[in-house]
């Protein structure tokens, strides 16, 4: 029997054993649910917003700002609280009350108001500094004294919608007073303070077929953020789902002493490659399900235009490469384990090539052609996730970069698989001693 046939036979056995196992089927269903849970929560929050009225106290040291702020808040409530067509409430109502400032003991007053927030009588309170109408000029926000600031106190976290909401009426109120001081008639306030809509548009292109100039179109958040994000999360999820079980599986089989008999019939390279091929098969099977499922959802939502079909070949290439690298590594690390605990510890090492790109994905998406994004996406361990992210962003990347990245990925994949097979050969029959990183390195180099 030749080498290829033995490899295929091992791959077939591992593939069938995996697809028939309950963990695989469970993971197949749960992974997209968990992966999309963030979007699900956002969707649910939007569908069922918290409409409880929010009461905010204003301590106005200027003596003039509070009425203007309350008026601006009333106007904003009127604009945003209800759907104009259906009359359905969309947002909570913000109720503002004024509290006379206690200049003798402001700290005691803040404590008292804080207690009211804690007892949920108030949602928050704001304190408008004495000079907030005309704060001194400063380039450094940190140096602005409290008397020139507007301080917002609440029990909520740093990301607080109410703080964001109240900023509008507070600034509008203050600007109204300033305009009035300048003699501007109040009927011009809306005109002066009205803001222009800045729309994000795609670049203009020329049609390859007709040569005609194609006008730019409005880009939405989904196109700019969700498509690359979902694509990359899908890749990361499938890669992790393939490589994680590989490490534990090899370690378990080693502890069950399965390999010695197999090694009499197949070489370590044939065994490890068979396992890797099975993992690639599993990941491609999952991908087909997820991609077809995703396209069907987009079709049903009449959003097929968002489907990044041109990136699918790259998705498959990066998937195969990443699964080969991580599964080869997982098999080698699994072979080096002597106990289930070892497998848990070494799993962290395995997840780095996936976790690090996920840590930097936001800066990469903010500046997809910046130095950080370009350099990191050309580092072979991170290329699959980061280059795909950049390719999926509107505007894409210079045409040569994916190909350069691909060369690096291929070289990296071959090198890791080769080293993994050498480690596997020695480690798989080593019992009772957990291999150190020094051992792994030595085995990879010397064989």
């Amino acid at each position, binding site marked *: *029997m*030749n080498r290829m*046939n*033995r490899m295929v*036979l*091992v791959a077939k*056995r591992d593939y069938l*054993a995996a697809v028939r*196992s309950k963990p695989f089927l469970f993971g197949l269903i749960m992974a997209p649910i968990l992966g999309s849970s963030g979007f699900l929560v956002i969707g649910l929050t939007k569908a069922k917003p918290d409409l409880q009225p929010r009461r905010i106290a204003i301590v106005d040291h200027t003596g003039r700002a509070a009425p203007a702020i309350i008026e601006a808040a009333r106007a904003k409530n009127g604009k945003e609280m209800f759907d104009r067509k259906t009359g359905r409430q969309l947002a909570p109502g913000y109720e503002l009350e004024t509290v006379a400032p206690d200049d003798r003991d402001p700290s005691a007053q803040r404590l008292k108001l804080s207690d009211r927030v804690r007892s949920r009588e108030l949602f928050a309170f704001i304190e408008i500094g004495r000079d907030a109408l005309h704060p001194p000029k400063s380039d450094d926000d940190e140096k602005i004294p409290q008397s020139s600031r507007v301080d917002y106190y609440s029990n909520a976290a740093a990301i607080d919608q109410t703080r964001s909401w109240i900023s509008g009426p507070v600034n509008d109120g203050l600007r109204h007073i300033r305009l009035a001081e300048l003699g501007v008639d109040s009927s011009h306030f809306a005109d002066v303070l009205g803001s222009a809509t800045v729309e994000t548009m795609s670049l203009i292109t020329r049609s390859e077929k007709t040569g005609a100039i194609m006008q730019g179109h409005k880009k939405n958040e989904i196109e700019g953020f969700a498509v690359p994000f979902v694509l990359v999360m899908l890749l990361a999820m499938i890669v992790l789902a393939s490589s994680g079980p590989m490490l534990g599986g090899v370690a378990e*089989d080693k502890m*069950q*002493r*399965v*390999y*010695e*008999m*197999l*090694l*009499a*019939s*197949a*070489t370590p390279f044939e065994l490890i490659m068979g396992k890797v091929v099975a993992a690639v098969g599993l990941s491609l099977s999952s991908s087909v399900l997820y991609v077809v499922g995703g396209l069907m959802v987009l079709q049903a939502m009449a959003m097929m235009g968002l489907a990044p079909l041109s990136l699918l070949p790259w998705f498959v290439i990066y998937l195969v490469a990443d699964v080969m690298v991580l599964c080869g590594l997982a098999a080698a690390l699994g072979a080096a384990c002597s106990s289930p605990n070892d497998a848990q510890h070494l799993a962290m090492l395995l997840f780095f090539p996936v976790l690090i790109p996920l840590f930097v994905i936001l800066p990469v998406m903010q500046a997809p052609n910046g130095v950080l994004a370009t350099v990191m996406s050309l580092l072979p361990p991170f290329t699959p996730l980061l280059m795909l992210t950049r390719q999926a962003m509107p505007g894409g990347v210079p045409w040569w970069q994916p190909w350069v990245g691909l060369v690096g990925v291929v070289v990296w994949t071959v090198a890791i698989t080769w080293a993994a097979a050498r480690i596997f050969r020695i480690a798989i*029959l080593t*019992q009772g001693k957990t291999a150190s990183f020094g051992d792994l390195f030595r085995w990879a180099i010397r064989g």
Partner: protein
Amino acid sequence: MDAIEIQGVTKTFGDLAAVDDLSLTVPQGAVYGFIGPNGSGKTTTMRMIVNIFYPDRGTIRVFGQELRAGRSGEIGYLPEERGLYRRMEVRSLLQFHGELRGGRKVTEEVDHWLLRLDLLQCATQRVETLSKGMSQKVQFIAAVVPEPKLLILDEPFTGLDPVSVDVIRTAILELRRRGATVILSTHDMSVAESLCDYILMIHRGRKVLDGTLDSIQQQYGSDTIRVSAAGGFDDLPGVEKVRDLGQVQELRMAQGCDPQEVLRALVARTRVTSFSVTKPSLHDIFVRIAGPEAPETMEARHE
């Protein structure tokens, strides 16, 4: 052509020479027994023949060919450390092992051996549901399907009940009759004596005995007395060592000792019910070489 030719093979792990300059020839169709204390190098030698380990020095030829990095479908191997995919069904597992080694479908052979070893009723059971003895028999089948020209069995009888031992022993002899060469390691000297045509003893990685049982025993001559008597063995003239086996005692005579004098001395002291002069058993030879009083062991202890 011999089944195996090993020339000057050495294998070290760190500073330890697991196998040290070993040379051995195994003729085709023979049953060759490997004996030796734990850690003496038997398993390492077997792993090198199967090509799981590569020798640091020397050459190993199987049926005239060096395996190098490849695998031979003609070698069946039963490792000492038993392990099978626990969640696979018995028949599927055996077909997988057979196809992996032989490169062809082995459905009929698997069923033949399942029937032969009384395991047909377990064919669709998962391996994890089998008893330890049944698992060992399944693993034996995995080693002999498809029928190998060379069968290497590392302690094949360990943990088996007497009935299963007989079944496996009969199967080994049948394979030998059909032309297979068999190498087996064992700690049971009676198995080595009764089953093996040739015996190799390895101690501390080096070959210390090699040949037929007769030729090995010849080296030691008839220096052993088997006697049944009610005590009186202390300070017998010309007796170097007394080994009490319960119903029988084994006396080792010093060089030049006359067994008649030993008998006379014993009769003078006690009642003797049986007395025979014989060659040393393999067990005795093993202990002489590797036991606590062996010169090499004493030397190692002083080091």
